[in-house]
């Protein structure tokens, strides 16, 4: 029989103050409006709390920092169980744009900035913006296609090195 009490942490460690989060690294792999805003709100919120931020954009997530696409992101109206319309209707031409515009109006009402402004805010607040090398090669993208304030193009290994340090969290969106 195993002695459970021996594996318990000493009482003293339990009352130790929790160590604060120092850095949050976001991996953004999707480009739907909801994914983009989830990442941007969390990243901006971290900077507001004095937490360092690194954002790594990969696969379709690259659209969020692609100058020609970032202002025209969409909601997925098909294959999205939270959509209050039937999937068959969601597939009709123009439906994605219609629903996306509705959502953008609602966001403006809440003073949520549009994607291009929000990304720039994160950059100006000191957040680092990175693009994934592999995904850029795959989509035949060049740095000039992406936002001017891009901090660089990284391999996965580079990204993990940037995530080094105590108090770092990695979030996949």
């Amino acid at each position, binding site marked *: 029989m195993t002695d459970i009490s021996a594996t318990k942490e000493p009482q003293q460690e339990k009352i130790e103050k929790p160590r604060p989060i120092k850095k949050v690294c976001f991996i953004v792999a999707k480009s739907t409006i909801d994914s983009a805003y989830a990442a941007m*709100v969390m990243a*901006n919120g971290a900077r507001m709390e004095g937490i360092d931020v690194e954002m790594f954009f990969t696969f379709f997530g690259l659209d969020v920092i692609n100058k020609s696409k970032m202002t025209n992101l969409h909601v997925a109206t098909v294959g999205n169980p939270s959509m209050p319309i039937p999937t068959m209707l969601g597939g009709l031409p123009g439906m994605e744009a219609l629903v996306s515009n509705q959502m953008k109006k609602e966001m403006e009402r809440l*003073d949520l*900035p549009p994607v291009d402004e929000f990304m720039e805010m994160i950059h100006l607040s000191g957040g680092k913006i990175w693009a994934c090398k592999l995904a850029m090669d795959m989509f035949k993208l060049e740095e000039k296609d992406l936002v001017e304030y891009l901090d660089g193009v990284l391999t996965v290994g580079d990204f993990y090195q940037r995530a080094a340090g105590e108090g770092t969290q990695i979030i996949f969106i």
Partner: protein
Amino acid sequence: MEKVIAGKTINVNEEGYLLDFDQWDKSIAEQIAIEEGIGELTDRHWAVVTWLQEQEKNKVALTIRKLGKSGVTDIKEFYALFPGGPLKKATKIAGIKKPVGCI
């Protein structure tokens, strides 16, 4: 709870935000700035603090976006002036409520 700031007894909440703006004065702002690691307040700091107080008086919900568009400062400078949580620290120094929004 009560706290002595710059030699005066001030009502603050558990996070150190003033509960009564009438108790605020510049010496209190300067003392809080030192406690928050901001150091000595310059004209640039005061411009932001004054703007925040005006917004609070007009009951405007404070966001960094609004401050960036205010013409008083820009987002980059705001983060540089109040490093480590600018809106939280600047509102505390200004003697007003901590903003509750997520953006």
